[in-house]
């Protein structure tokens, strides 16, 4: 077993587009949960909506990149309204139930065989990346050093993905230091109190839901740009991965979701590589290499529980500001 290879691929995950997508999606639920107190358990649904609304117009109507991105943003805004209008007047728990269910609905709808002509059914969609690679500003060649050596196209998708992450973080920073952020954080604490002070709580919750949902949909775009759309990727596990990343980093922080996503992605690859490596080196004999993939999720589940119990505020969070009882 090549141990160097295991660490190299784990380090490569640090800057991978998938990690960027995770980070952006985590920033999205950071806005929802960390700042506004909205329990969105359907971020995978927002990502799926974003991905399909980007890919379908590109393939069917030859949308240019900017128009496809707009279509993705627009679709997620519609989805946020659809979820928010009936549920945001109710308690936070109801939004949680509705989001988790609707994310599953989205996944089953795109997998429907009747829609195969549009959504590709269970096999998903591919071959939509040309509008993106056509805009690649980098000349052919190889870039970077160590575990981070990329082709021009790999570099372009990373630069694009991480730029969106940085822009989203700046936007969240600007909003959360503003009076708007103050109202939203007040709603997280007690929405009736904020209502009694003359703020339209419903409108603020809707704005927060849309903002985080748009980040989710753009994360969905970054997620599929270097590969194809696979409906099975958008199961609830994806949502809970993103929650883990957010809580790992710290829910109401700017850097938390980004660092949380990086740590999580690296650990995911590293633990997989290490377990497989130990099995092939006959150090671990009681599990097979096909079981290894499952074992690491057990470990991750245990880590999440320990995290919530012993460090609910995450890596960057201030314990006083954000304990778990939102």
């Amino acid at each position, binding site marked *: 077993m090549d141990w160097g290879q295991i660490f190299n691929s784990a380090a490569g995950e640090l800057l991978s587009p998938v990690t960027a997508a995770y980070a952006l999606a985590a920033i999205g639920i950071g806005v929802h949960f960390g700042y506004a107190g909205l329990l969105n358990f359907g971020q995978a649904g927002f990502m799926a909506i974003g991905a399909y609304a980007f890919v379908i117009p590109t393939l069917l109507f030859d949308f240019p990149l900017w128009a496809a991105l707009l279509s993705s943003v627009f679709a997620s805004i519609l989805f946020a309204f659809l979820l928010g209008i009936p549920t945001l007047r109710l308690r936070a728990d109801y939004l949680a139930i509705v989001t988790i269910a609707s994310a599953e609905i989205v996944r089953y709808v795109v997998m429907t065989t009747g829609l195969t002509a549009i959504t590709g059914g269970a096999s998903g969609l591919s071959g939509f990346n040309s509008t993106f690679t056509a805009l690649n500003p980098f000349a052919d060649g190889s870039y970077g050093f160590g575990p981070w050596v990329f082709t021009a196209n790999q570099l372009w998708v990373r630069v694009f993905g991480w730029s969106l992450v940085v822009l989203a973080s700046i*936007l969240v920073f*600007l*909003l959360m230091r*503003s*009076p*708007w*952020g*103050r*109202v939203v*954080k*007040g709603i*997280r*604490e*007690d929405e*009736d*109190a*904020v*209502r*009694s*002070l*003359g*703020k*339209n*709580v419903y409108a603020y919750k809707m*704005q927060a839901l849309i*903002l985080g949902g748009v980040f989710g949909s753009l994360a969905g775009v970054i997620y599929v740009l270097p590969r194809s759309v696979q409906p099975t990727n958008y199961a609830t596990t994806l949502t809970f991965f993103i929650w883990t990343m957010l809580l790992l980093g710290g829910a109401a922080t700017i850097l938390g979701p980004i660092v949380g996503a990086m740590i999580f992605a690296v650990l995911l690859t590293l633990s997989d590589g290490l377990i497989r490596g130990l099995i092939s080196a006959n150090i671990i004999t009681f599990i097979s290499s096909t079981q290894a993939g499952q074992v690491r999720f057990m470990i991750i589940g245990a880590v999440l529980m320990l995290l919530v119990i012993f460090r609910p505020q995450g890596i960057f969070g201030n314990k*006083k*500001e*954000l304990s778990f009882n939102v």
Partner: protein
Amino acid sequence: MSETMQTHPLVIGEVGPGCKKVDPIVVADNVTRTFGGLKAVDVVHVEIPRNAITALIGPNGAGKTTFFNLLTGFDKPNTGTWSFEGHSLARVPAFRVARKGMVRTFQLTKSLGRLSVLQNMLLGATKQPGENIFTALIKPLWRGREQDITAKAEDLLDRFKLLEKSSDYAASLSGGQRKLLEMARALMSDPVLIMLDEPMAGVNPALTQSLLGHVKQLKADGMSVLFVEHDMHMVRHISDWVIVMAEGRVVAEGPPDQVMNDPAVIDAYLGAHHDTDLGEMTGTIPVAAAPETATATATVPTETTAAETEREVEK
């Protein structure tokens, strides 16, 4: 209340349940709210006088808080209309009611724990353009207003003796300080009518005295106050007008001395022994006078009891 015609400067005509006020700020008609088979609120007509301190009293379950919630838009009535300064407020959402100048506090204090005391205060301010999601992004558009409301917040915090706490999380305040913070926060919007739901619940006697002073000051500043309270000392000492509710209806109203001496009101709604100190009733309880509380409580309540005894003698 009795056979002889009784009048009062706040009232047109005779004093009694639902009587007309000279200058009402809130007028409610036929407001009902049922929970299943229970008619929690059934108010035929009531008027709240302007620039006065009005107490809303009654036994537990009388519908006081429900009536409060209805007036402020936190609950929807089954029937009824009510107006605030002549504008109808029926079916107006709670946040619009607050914007019109009718601001409330809550029985269970709602301080925003993980915001600082100052942030709590700033949230009470109105006309902050930075509360719009788009203008929020450009700081110069809201910096000026932020400075104004910060100065105002610090002023109010100073008045409520919370200024040195301004950068602490509200969650770190004591229960009484949270009550003060909630009241101060409500004042950030310069309300016309401030509605306090049990402002004295769970507040120690020393702080009660300071809260009483603040409530009186509100009236002196030109505001009208409506409060729900169980503490009869407070009702007696600061209210200009008392409205008594029972089983959802307004059963009596009048100036405090008159209402509280109405035998029917006393027996039915305040309990026959409302005026008797529990210590006196059961004889001496030496344990009750714990050394540390004795100093805090001794000064104020003895004065009030003395004042009451005098008043009883005059009558």
